[in-house]
Every structure is written in C-alpha cells, then in structure tokens.
C-alpha cells in the first residue's frame, strides 16, 4: 500500500466538498473562499500527479492573484447575501438536470480507452496502434527527475510552445490595457 492513493482521495474529497460549498454558499465571499479551498486541494493533487511546479503556480496565480482580485471586487461592491439568492425553482431544476446530464456524459467518456480514441481519431481502418496516433512524450515524473521541477515545464514551454507563449504575453498586455480602460472612470 502506498501513501499517495489515500492522500489523493483526501484531497479529492476536500476539493469536491469545497466546490459544492462554493456553489451553494449565499455569501459571495464565502463562495470565493471555498473556491480558494478547492484550488488549494487541486494544488495538492497536482503534487501527487508529479506536477509540483504547476501546483506552486496554481497557488501563486489562482489563489494568490486571481481569487484575491475576486475578493477585492466583491468587497468593493459590497454585495452581501441576497435575500433569496436562488433562482426560481423550475429554472434551478432545469439547471440541475442539464448539469446532471452533462456530468453523466462526461463520465461516459471514461469508456474511451486509448484504443478507441486512436480508432476514432485516425483516418486508418479500425484497429490502429495508439502509439502511432498519440506519440508518447516524456512522462512528468521522468522529466522532473531529469531536469528538475522548473526545467521540466520550461523545456517544452520555451521550445515547442514558444510562439503560443509569446502570444499569451500579448494577450496579457491586451487584458491589462482593457482592464484599465474599463475600470478607470476617467483616463
């Protein structure tokens, strides 16, 4: 018995409970805090999945920056508990039903093994070798062992994904300008 699996389930349970609380709390601040909690649990899971760097970035960026921003906005607007936050029940029921169907469908995707994905993805006749369709990259654990936590992610990021990386910088710049223009009353 290894220690990873039970820890995983602990984190998984934590994240699901937090997520449920996030979408059910009336107070937006509580929601935000429970979402932070979810993200924290996910960061833990990332560590278990050999993605330590992503885990750190998850906490720094998501919990440390994005959610703080949310919290700020909520505080600034001071939107407290609405007297009746829930939608009228038919709408709510419809939402629950739709989400349930979607969840069921997502779970059904579990039936897609490598072989089946490869068969549907490829243009070749039915039984194809999945290894040919999905070339295996270096798995996370091996890459971390070879290049360290940061290097493992940095290597593909600055080689194969360099152009997208540069484009995201433009995206960020655009977002900064957009946010300033939108939020500032007078430039």
């Amino acid at each position, binding site marked *: 018995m290894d220690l990873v699996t039970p820890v995983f389930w602990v984190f998984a349970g934590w994240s699901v409970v937090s997520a449920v609380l996030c979408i059910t709390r009336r107070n937006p601040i509580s929601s935000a805090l429970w979402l932070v909690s979810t993200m924290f649990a996910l960061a833990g*899971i990332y560590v278990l999945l050999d993605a330590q760097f992503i885990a750190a970035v998850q906490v720094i960026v998501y919990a440390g920056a994005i959610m703080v921003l949310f919290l700020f906005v909520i505080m600034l*607007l001071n939107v407290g508990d609405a007297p009746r936050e829930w939608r009228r029940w038919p709408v709510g029921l419809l939402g629950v039903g739709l989400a349930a169907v979607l969840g069921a469908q997502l779970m059904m995707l579990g039936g897609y093994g490598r072989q089946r994905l490869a068969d549907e993805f490829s243009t070749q006749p039915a039984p194809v070798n999945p290894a040919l369709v999905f070339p295996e990259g270096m798995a*996370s654990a091996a890459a971390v062992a070879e290049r360290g936590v940061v290097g493992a992610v940095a290597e593909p990021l600055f080689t*194969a994904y360099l152009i997208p990386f540069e484009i995201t910088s433009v995206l960020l710049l655009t977002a900064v300008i957009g946010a300033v223009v939108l939020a500032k009353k007078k430039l």
Partner: protein
Amino acid sequence: MLLGPSLALSAVLFTLGVLGVLVRRNAIVVFMCVELMLNAVNLSFVALAQVHGLGGQVMVIFVMTVAAAEAAVGLAIILAIFRHAQSVDLRQLTLLKG
C-alpha cells in the same frame, strides 16, 4: 498513476462548475464557477501529462494566463456594470435584450 480517478474528479468538478453557472445569479459567483470549470480542465491536463508528456502542464500554464487575463477584464466589466446598474444580479442585467 491515478489517471482514472483524476479524470473522474475533473469531470465532477466541471459539472459542479456548470451547475453553479446555471443556478447562481450573482455575476461574480457565476464568473467564479467558470474559474472552477477551468480548474477542472487543468486537472485533466495535469493528469494526462503524467502519461502523455509535459505538453499538458504547459497547457495548464496557458490556461492560467488566459484565466488571469479573463479575470482582469471580466472583473473590470463587472465593475463597470455595477457602476451603471448598481447591481451584479444577472436577473436585473437585461441590457442584452433583443
């Protein structure tokens, strides 16, 4: 490896995010539920990166970047809307009415 459980957890979190988007009517909370969905997808990426190489982790970084940009702009929009309508209740925001 935990690939299967991770993907299942991802699906559950994603569904919860969708549910939140559908049933909540506070714009900020809806927005947070979108972030939850993004996180669920990130989990899938990370889980698959274990097997299929680090492209998945790189993608998570991109998703986070986009999420950050989205949060900045989205919250700025919500601020602007609040300034305009004194509310972030989606039921009262019917400016898009055709």
